[in-house]
C-alpha cells in the first residue's frame, strides 16, 4: 500500500481514536505519554477518544488512530464509516496492522473455538477471521507493535502535525540490539531469537532482558526467514515449536512472509 503525503494540517486538527478487537493497550500508550500528553492535547483537538473522554464528537477527523482488528460483521461496516470520516488514518498496533493475537482463529475452526468458550455459541456474532484494517480500507500509515512504542507514537503524531512522513525505521530488532550494546543471545547462549526477522521499535527489549525476541512487532521490511529456521532448529526447537513461535502476536504477517517471502503488511520506508 502506498503512503500518501500527509496533508498540511489546519490549526488544531481534530483527533479521533477508535477501537476494534483489542486489549486497549495501544490506546493506553497514548495516555502513557505522560510527559507529552498535555502538549499533544494542546496541539490536537481530541474529538473522539472514548477511553479517555466523555466528549465524543462526530467527524470529520483530521487524524484517526485505529486500534484493534476487524472481527465482526459490524466492524466491517464501522471501519468503512470511520475511513470516510478520516483525512489521515493510522493503524496503531499489531491487531489493527496484522490482525493481532486473535487472528490465531484464522487458522482454526472458529465453530470449535466458539464451542470451547461459550455454552451457547449461537448468541455470539463473529467473523471466522480477525483481519487488519488494511484488508478493508486504505490506510495511510501502519504503526507496529504489541503494544506500540510510546516514542514511535509520538513521532507519528509529531510528523502528522508537521505534515511530513514519520521517521520509523524499517530495519530489524538486531540493529537496535547492536546499538544497545547487547551480547547476541543466539550467538552467545544459543537462545532462539526472532530479532533478525522482526521489525524494530521496541528497543530490543527481550534480548536486553536475556530472552529471545518473540516477534511482537511483526516482520521487518526485508527478512530472510528461511535462513533463520535452521538456526532455531540448531538451538533445540522443533518445527512445531518454530511454528508456534512465529504464529502468535503477528500471526498473519509472519505467515505471509513464510508463504510469499515478503511481509504481508505495508512497507514503510524511513531510515533508522
Amino acid at each position, binding site marked *: 500500500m502506498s503512503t500518501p503525503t500527509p496533508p498540511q494540517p489546519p490549526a488544531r486538527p481534530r483527533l479521533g481514536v477508535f*477501537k*476494534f*478487537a*483489542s*486489549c*486497549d*493497550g*495501544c*490506546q*493506553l*500508550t497514548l*495516555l*502513557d505519554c*505522560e*510527559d507529552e*500528553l*498535555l502538549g499533544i*492535547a494542546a496541539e490536537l483537538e*481530541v474529538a473522539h*477518544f*472514548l*477511553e*479517555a*473522554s*466523555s*466528549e*465524543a464528537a462526530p467527524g470529520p477527523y483530521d487524524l484517526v488512530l485505529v486500534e484493534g482488528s476487524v*472481527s*465482526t460483521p459490524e*466492524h466491517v461496516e464501522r471501519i468503512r464509516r470511520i475511513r470516510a470520516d478520516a483525512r489521515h488514518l493510522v493503524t496503531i498496533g499489531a491487531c489493527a496492522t496484522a490482525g*493481532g*493475537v*486473535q487472528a*490465531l*482463529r484464522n487458522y*482454526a475452526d*472458529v465453530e*470449535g*473455538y*466458539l464451542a*470451547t468458550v*461459550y455454552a*451457547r455459541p449461537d*448468541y*455470539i456474532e*463473529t467473523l471466522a477471521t480477525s483481519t487488519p484494517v488494511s484488508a478493508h480500507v486504505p490506510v495511510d500509515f501502519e504503526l507496529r507493535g*504489541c*503494544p506500540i512504542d510510546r516514542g514511535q507514537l509520538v513521532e507519528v503524531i509529531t510528523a502528522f502535525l508537521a505534515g511530513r512522513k514519520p521517521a520509523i525505521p524499517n530495519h530489524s530488532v538486531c540493529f537496535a540490539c547492536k546499538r544497545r550494546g547487547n551480547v547476541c543471545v543466539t550467538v552467545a547462549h544459543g537462545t532462539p531469537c526472532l530479532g533478525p526477522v522482526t521489525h524494530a521499535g*521496541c528497543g530490543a*527489549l*527481550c534480548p536486553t*532482558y*536475556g*530472552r529471545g525476541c*518473540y516477534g*511482537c512487532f511483526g516482520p521487518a521490511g526485508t527478512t530472510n526467514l528461511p535462513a533463520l529456521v535452521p538456526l532455531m532448529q540448531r538451538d533445540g526447537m522443533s518445527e512445531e*515449536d518454530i511454528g*508456534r513461535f512465529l504464529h*502468535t*502476536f503477528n500471526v498473519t504477517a509472519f505467515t505471509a512472509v513464510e508463504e510469499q517471502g515478503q511481509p504481508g503488511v505495508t512497507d514503510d520506508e524511513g531510515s533508522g
Partner: protein
Amino acid sequence: MSDPTPRYQELRIPSLARVEGETALHLRIHDGTVTEARLKIYEPPRFFEAFLRGRAHTEPPDLTSRICGICPVAYQMSACRAIEDACGVVVDGQLAALRRLLYCGEWIESQTLHIHMLHAPDFLGEDDVIGLSRSHPEHVKRGLRLKQTGNAVVELLGGRAIHPVNVRVGGFHRAPTRAELRLLEERLRTALDDAWDTVRWVAGFEFPDAECDADLLALAEEDTYAIESGLPTVLPYDETLPPYSFPLRDFTDRVAEEQVSHSTALHSRLDGRRHLTGSLARWAVSGHLLSPLALEAAREAGLGDPLSRAGVGRAEVCRNPYRSILVRAVEVLYAVEEALRIIAEYERPASPYVEVPARAGIGHGATEAPRGLLYHRYAFDGGGRVTDARIVPPTAQNQGAIEEDLRRLVQAGLDRGEGSEAELTRLCERAVRNHDPCISCSAHFLELDIERTH
C-alpha cells in the same frame, strides 16, 4: 408519583466513555419502576481460552497478558501461579518479593489512571482529563507524575509498562541489581507525598449516598494485604452469615459462570449470590492488614478504622461504590510504601527464576488485579501442553453487582423525578465508572436503551 416522561419510551445513548471497552445498557421501566437493568457487553470474542490449547506450559503468561493492556501484569501473575501450581513449584523469597514489586507498579499506575483520568472528572463536572487539566492543573500533573512512577517500576522490572517481557514461569528472565532498583527510590519517595495528596484531594469530593448489596470477594493473606496471592475470602452482605474462605481449587464450583443472551461476557455468581470483587472487597476483607501509614490515610479520608472492629478482625466495610475512589487512593499509597519496603530489603537472587519442569496436571492461580480477583486454571498433558484453560476476570464477576447497582440508582433517580435521557445517562455512566470495569477483559461503549411501559 407522577412520571413526567411518556408512558413508553425507548432511549439510546451511544457511548459510555472512560471505561475500557464497549457496553450497552438496556433498562426496562414499567410504570415508573425499573424492572430490569442489563449490561450488554459486546466486546467481540477473542477466543483466548480456545487458542491457548496446545500451547507449551511456558506460553500463557505472554499470551494472556494480551487480554488486557491495562492490567497485563495481573494476567501474567495469575497465569504463572496457576502453571506453577500444576507443576508443583513454589516461587518464594526474593523472586516472590520482585513479583509483588512488579504488581505494586501496576497497582500504582493503573489505579492512578482510573482515579485521575477516568473517575475524578465525574466528581468535578468535567468530560475528561483534558478538561480537568484546565480546571485542576496541579492535580492532573500530580496524577501524571504518580502514574509515571508506577510505569517506571513496571518498566524497570518488566521492560515495558504494557505487556512486560521480563516475566516468565518460575520468576523473571533477568533479576535487577540492587543498584538498578535503588534508582527508583527517589521517585517513589516523591510518589509517597503525591499519593498522600491524592488521598486528601479525593477525600474532599462529594459522594452521593449509595450502597452495593453484593457479597464481597477478595483474596486474603494471614499477615499482609493480599495482592499477588491469597485464599478466596467472602464477606457476605447478610451480616448474620460469617465471613468464610474456600480453597482456590474450588473456585469454579463456587463462582459459577453462565452465558446470557445479551452479553459476550459470561455472568458469574458466588455460591448462588451476587458478588463484587475489587478495591471495596479488598478493603473490607484485608483493610486491617494495611500499613500504619495507609491506615492513617484511610482514617483521614473518612473510610473509618478497620482496627476498631477488632473482635471481627475485619475492616470497616465501605459499600458505597462512589467511595471506591478513596480506597483506590489509599491502595496507591500502600503500593508505593510496599515498593519502597521491597526495594530496601532486596538482595539479588542467585538465579532470576526457578526451574518449572512440565508435568501433567491441573493448576489454579488467582491474584488481585487492580479491578479485582483474577482467576486462571490450566490443565496440562504429560508433555506440558495446555489441554484446557479457564480464565475468570474481575469484570465478568462484577457484572451482576453492577447491574443491580444501576437498577437501584435509576430507580432512585426516577423517584427524585430525574427521568430525562440526559439525567439517566449521566447517572448510569457514573455508576459504571465507579466500578472501574475493564471490559476488554470480559467482553465495550455504553449504549443506553430504555424501554418504558405503563
